[in-house]
C-alpha cells in the first residue's frame, strides 16, 4: 500500500493540476480565464510526461568530463535519466507558446470588434448584430 502511494502520487498531483485547468476552461465565462485554463492544462501534461523519465539513483543526461583525455569509457544506461521525454516536451512547450500568441491576437480582435470578453454578453452582441 505504501509502495503504491509512493509510486503513484505524482500521477495524482498532475491529474489534480489538470483538473484545475479543465475547470477553468469549462466553468468560467471570461475568455481570458479560459485561455489561462488552457495554458494550465497544457503545462500539467508537459510536466507529467517529463516525470515519466525519472529513474532511481540516476543523474542528468549530460556526460561530464568528456573532453579530458581518457574520458568515460563506457556509459551505462542505468546511470542516466531517460532523455527522450525531455526532447519531445521541448517541442510541446514551443508549440504552446505559439498557440498562446495566436489566441491572444484573436482576443484582441474580438475585443475591438464587439467591446466585451464575457461569453454570454458576446453571444448576445453577435446575435443582435448579425
Amino acid at each position, binding site marked *: 500500500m505504501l509502495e503504491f502511494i509512493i509510486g503513484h502520487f505524482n*500521477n495524482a498531483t498532475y491529474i489534480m493540476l489538470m483538473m484545475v485547468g479543465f475547470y477553468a476552461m469549462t466553468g468560467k465565462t471570461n475568455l481570458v480565464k479560459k485561455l489561462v485554463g488552457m495554458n494550465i492544462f497544457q503545462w500539467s501534461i508537459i510536466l507529467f510526461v517529463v516525470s515519466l523519465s525519472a529513474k532511481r539513483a540516476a543523474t542528468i543526461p549530460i556526460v561530464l568530463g568528456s573532453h579530458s583525455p581518457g574520458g568515460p569509457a563506457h556509459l551505462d544506461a542505468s546511470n542516466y535519466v531517460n532523455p527522450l521525454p525531455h*526532447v519531445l516536451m521541448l*517541442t510541446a512547450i514551443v508549440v504552446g507558446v*505559439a498557440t498562446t500568441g495566436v489566441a491572444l491576437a484573436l482576443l484582441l480582435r474580438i475585443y475591438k470588434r464587439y467591446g466585451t470578453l464575457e461569453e454570454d454578453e458576446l453571444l448576445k452582441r453577435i446575435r443582435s448584430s448579425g
Partner: protein
Amino acid sequence: MNYLHLVITGLTGLLLFLGSVDMPNTGDPTSAPAVHVSPRYIEDSLEETAVPNMVTAVLADYRGFDTLGEAAVVFTGAMAVLLILRTKREEP
C-alpha cells in the same frame, strides 16, 4: 460557483486516476520507457556525435526532422499573429 462543472471535473479526475493505477511506479528502472529505445541513445551518443549533452544530440541529430518542423511551427505562429493584427494604414 458552478456546481455542475465541479461535479463533472471531479468525475473526470477520478476516472483519469483510476486509469493510471496500472502504470509502472515512478523511477522504476525496469519500466517500459526506460528499456526500449533510450539505452541505445544513452550509450552510443557520445561516440557517434561527440556531443556530451544527450538531449541536444537526440533533438538536433537523431530527430532532426522534428526540430525542423518545430522551427516551422514557431515561424507560422509569428506569421499568423501578423496576419491577424496588422492592418493596412489608410493613405491620408
